[in-house]
């Protein structure tokens, strides 16, 4: 048995209730949608890049607390970052949710709040939807991202 408080930590409840960087970004030069067909979560990611720097980033859409909080935390973590750094974070976040051992939570900052999702395999896709959408933006893809 897993304690629910590990999944719905305060950070997650807070970012779900008042998501940061929520809403359309008029200055975005990349806009991409992500879907989770299984549960109907859908979000749109707006990214404004300046060369290799993510100048600004926002999202909107609807989803469960895990997917909304994850997107909110992701946008916070990425603003002003170099794209290489964003790629590194994508990989690290993926490890956080899929690998059991050898994770030093301290290096994750606020993103560590999502570590509890590991114990709920059916919810991992909720947490990774925004990151997969971001990854597609970084790779220059135009077609909407689906987690299926």
């Amino acid at each position, binding site marked *: *048995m*897993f304690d*629910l408080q590990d*999944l*719905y930590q305060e950070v997650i*409840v807070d970012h*779900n*209730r008042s998501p940061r960087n929520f809403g359309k970004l008029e200055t975005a030069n990349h806009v991409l949608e992500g879907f989770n067909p*299984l*549960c*109907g*979560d*859908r979000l749109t990611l707006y990214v404004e890049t300046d060369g290799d720097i993510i100048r600004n980033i926002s999202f909107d859409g*609807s*989803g*469960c*607390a*895990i997917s*909304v909080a994850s997107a909110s935390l992701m946008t916070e973590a990425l603003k002003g970052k170099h794209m290489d750094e964003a790629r590194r974070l994508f990989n690290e976040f993926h490890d956080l949710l899929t690998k059991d051992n050898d994770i030093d939570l301290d290096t994750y900052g606020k993103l560590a709040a999502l570590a509890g999702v590991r114990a*709920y395999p*059916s*919810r991992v896709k*909720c947490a990774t939807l925004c990151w997969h959408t971001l990854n597609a933006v970084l790779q220059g893809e135009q077609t909407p991202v689906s987690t299926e």
Partner: protein
Amino acid sequence: MNESVAAENLKTMPLDIEQIRRDFPILHQQVNGKPLVYLDNAATAQKPHQVIETVAAYYRLDNANVHRGVHTLSQRATDAYEGAREKVKTFLNAASEQEIVFVRGATEGINLVAQSFGRESLQAGDEILITEMEHHSNIVPWQMLCEQTGATLKYVSINDAGELNLEEFDRLLTDKTRIVALVHISNALGTINPVEAIIRKAHAVGARVLLDGAQAAPHIAVDVQALDCDFYVLSGHKLFAPTGIGVLYGKQSLLESMPPYQGGGDMIKMVSMKKTLYNDLPYKFEAGTPHISGAIGLGAAIDYLNNIGLDRIQQYEHELLEYGSRVLAGIDDLTIKGTAAKKTSILSFVLKGIHPHDIGTILDNEGIAIRAGHHCAMPIMERFGLPATARASLAFYNTREEIDRLAAAIIKCREIFN
């Protein structure tokens, strides 16, 4: 007291739920440290040990292929398989066993009708009328048929309570309508549709009617002759029987006029290199080795339901639904979706500010199984402007105590998020 009076008395006695629960071994376990509360019966129902044992005994004692052996086991397997067909015939009050086709489930039954009856008889300009409250399995096969034939698909809308807009049905039903296909009872809302009137009107314009009875057969008595429907489909696994078995009922004259759905063994009388003579009903539609143990398990499930009595089940579930609706309506920020005047044991709901998936996870942590999502009925979600709902679906083995635990867990969701 003579025996038939005793039997009659038994039929009017309230259900002994404790006794019934003992028939379902799966219910007696802990999930996440709490006694399991299974409220996902619309997705699939649990199996009584009478069904489990019948299937196991078939494999232990009688297993053989059907309709083809001269040996004793094959005869026994055939007798049991055909015996199950007879039970289904009586259960649905069909006129003959020849009208009962074993399929994989409701989905395959609908696809069979679309591809055999529909493909043969529809052409460009014809219309198929369905509703906004259909399961995807009663939408997609008709969309495919429309692509193949040039026919047009029309939808009857629903009102805020989740009932069909019948004036619109009257408007959309024309002499162009060839097929009317609709759900007898909605899996997402619980609405019981007024199918008798719909069938009468559809027949008046010469249309054929298919009823999707996946959610009806487990909850109310179905009489296909009284309904006068042309096709009726159901899924065994929602009727306390194994997965992978279902039933297509079709009026004999229609089934006879329809081409086979699949080709293979069992559906033929004679095959030469040039020509094949198709078998009689219902075998014409049962190509290949069927799901023998599934059919036998379905027969056992029907026996089990008959022993309890669908009338008593319906009465009990109705009381449970009323209790559940009252308890849930008393929770702040909770809205029940699907409030039709006539409905069965489905409680679809949303909680302000909390996504159904989060509700599903928190309830699971309390040992409570519900469904969260679009319930394979995305047009309904669109109609209500919702991405998803949480759905508790009841069966006759559920209790008021379980509803109370559901309510307590929902209140816990609010505590976590507020």
